[in-house]
């Protein structure tokens, strides 16, 4: 369970995030939807504890990542915006390193890596250097690395960016598998189809604020639009107009 309440983030000149609250419950997939620059990545960084919120708080299964980072991170598996691998190591060595950093080791860790590689269809590539991997293969290794310690909560920042249809399909089934195992999954995207296809709950962000949240059906109902895409455009454009109103006043 991931809870964010009234998160604010002010950088020197701009307010990137303003009063963002939401929760991502266990055994559910929560989508953080918003156009580029809406503040999704900043919110996820505050949730992970790497960036301190100017105001507001985060709780990962009740643990504040700013106060007890080690315990909070043990409960979190995060695929951040930056997802570089160690090019001189093999896929297995990349994932094993992070497993060991999470306190795992020995045969249990190797079994876990085998299981993840099978789920993500990486098996044949396991012992090859990641230098020659395709973008989709790199993404899968990065995801395996993020969840190697089998965390209760999983955060994925734009996991489908730049992937082909096949990779997206196997990624979706992997995310559903996480949900089936009772994990809380929070994942951000700017692509409506992604969110509509996967998510139980949607949090729509625009210009640093939450403009709506609910299920796909609830959002469609609220805006009176037939598709989520139109609802999304409707929701994000009202914010833009009210912002403009604020400026003219």
């Amino acid at each position, binding site marked *: 369970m991931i809870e964010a309440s009234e998160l604010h983030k002010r950088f020197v000149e701009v307010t990137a995030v303003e009063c963002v609250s939401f929760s991502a419950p266990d055994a559910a997939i929560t989508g953080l939807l918003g156009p580029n620059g809406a503040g999704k990545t900043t919110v996820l*960084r505050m949730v*992970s504890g*790497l*960036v*301190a919120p100017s105001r507001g708080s985060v709780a990962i299964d009740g643990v504040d990542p700013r106060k007890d*980072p*080690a*315990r909070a*991170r*043990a409960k*979190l598996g*995060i*695929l*951040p*915006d*930056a*997802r*570089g*691998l*160690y*090019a*001189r*190591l093999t896929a297995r*060595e990349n994932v094993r*390193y*992070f497993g*060991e*950093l*999470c*306190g795992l*080791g020995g045969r249990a860790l190797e079994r876990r890596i085998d299981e993840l590689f099978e789920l993500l269809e990486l098996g044949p590539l396991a012992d090859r250097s990641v230098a020659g991997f395709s973008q989709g293969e790199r993404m899968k290794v*990065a995801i395996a*690395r*993020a969840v190697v310690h089998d965390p209760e909560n999983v955060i994925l920042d734009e996991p489908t960016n730049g992937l082909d249809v096949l990779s997206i399909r196997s990624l979706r089934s992997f995310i559903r598998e996480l949900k089936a195992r009772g994990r809380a999954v929070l994942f951000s995207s700017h692509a409506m189809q992604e969110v509509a296809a996967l998510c139980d709950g949607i949090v729509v962000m625009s210009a640093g604020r939450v403009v709506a949240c609910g299920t796909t059906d609830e959002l469609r109902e609220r805006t009176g639009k037939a598709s989520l895409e139109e609802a999304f455009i409707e929701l994000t454009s009202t914010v833009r107009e009210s912002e403009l109103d604020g400026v003219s006043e």
Partner: protein
Amino acid sequence: MSRARLVLVVLKKELRDGMRDRRALFSLLVFPLVGPTLVSLMLATLVERATAEPPIRLPVAHAERAPALIRHLVNEGITVVDAPADPIAEVRSGRADAVLIVESNYAEALRLGRSADVELVLDDAREDARPAVRRVQRALQVYGQTVGALRLMARGVSPNLAQAVAVHEVDLSTPQSRGAVFLNFVPLFVLMAAFIGGMHLASDVTAGERERGSFEPLLLTPVSRRDLVVGKWFAATAFAATTVVVTLACTALALSRVPLHRFGMAASLSPRDLLLVLATVLPLTPLAAAVELLVASFARTVKEAQIYLSLLTFAPMLPALYLSLQPMKPGPAMAALPVVGQQAILAAIVRGEAPTPLAFFAAGGSAMVLACVAVLATAALFRSERIVYGR
């Protein structure tokens, strides 16, 4: 899991990664090979030129007038040949360094106890001829003094009468201290090895992590920043220490092949000296690695980090340069300065003096303290949003 085990996990990964990095291996292994090879080649040619006395060819006109003098010249290693018709043209054109002409009254004057005349034709403006000319002049002078002394003795007069002041030079330099001039290269190379060995690894595990985007995932693991930095620090230190050992071994091997003894110097470092040099420089490697990690953490790319770090390798040279311009005996305060203290110890070892244990302790201890400060500062940097996400 204990913190020591986490540090070990980081250390093992960085070492494995570093061993597969061609550029990191390059700075680990190529510097120790290139440096000493270059120096030993330089020394070898220098020694060759200074010690090998080339045979001197001296044309002598009318050699038959002074057979004893000619015998003396030949004994001094000078090859006497017949003089050409025009001695002046011979010297001016550079075909001969000098030409000796024995005057017609030479034998007569010698017999009567007067000064016997010889003429040495030379061109003082010719730099390359000077060593040869000087040797001929010295040989002639020695011959004249010997004959003069014999004349005095024949008349019952001590030759010492003619020598009112006798200068006895007492040369305090031992063969070892003369060799020090050349051996001063060794500490500089070994010190530089401490800074160069871990350089690439240090920039790869900091700026490199940021550049390739693996830094943020790493910071999201439950490991504390300090344990991460310590693991990386140990790895960079291991690389630096290996470079120091290999450099020292290569230098020792190279020096053993240079014929320094032909230069009148017992200039090789004994195994005990080598161990002392190692004991002096090794405590400097953690400091070099820690400072490199700290500096490289400010860089966004490996290339940027390399620029900063290559400037940093000048650090060990600055005190050396200063000390060579401003020779002074290092006081206690300087002995406790990292790098400067080590250089003072190394200079003492090379001069054949025994450094005190206190000097080791002061220089090594201050280096360790400073290294720990740099490691903690790097860990603090890893907590800053500006460093983690800074563009």
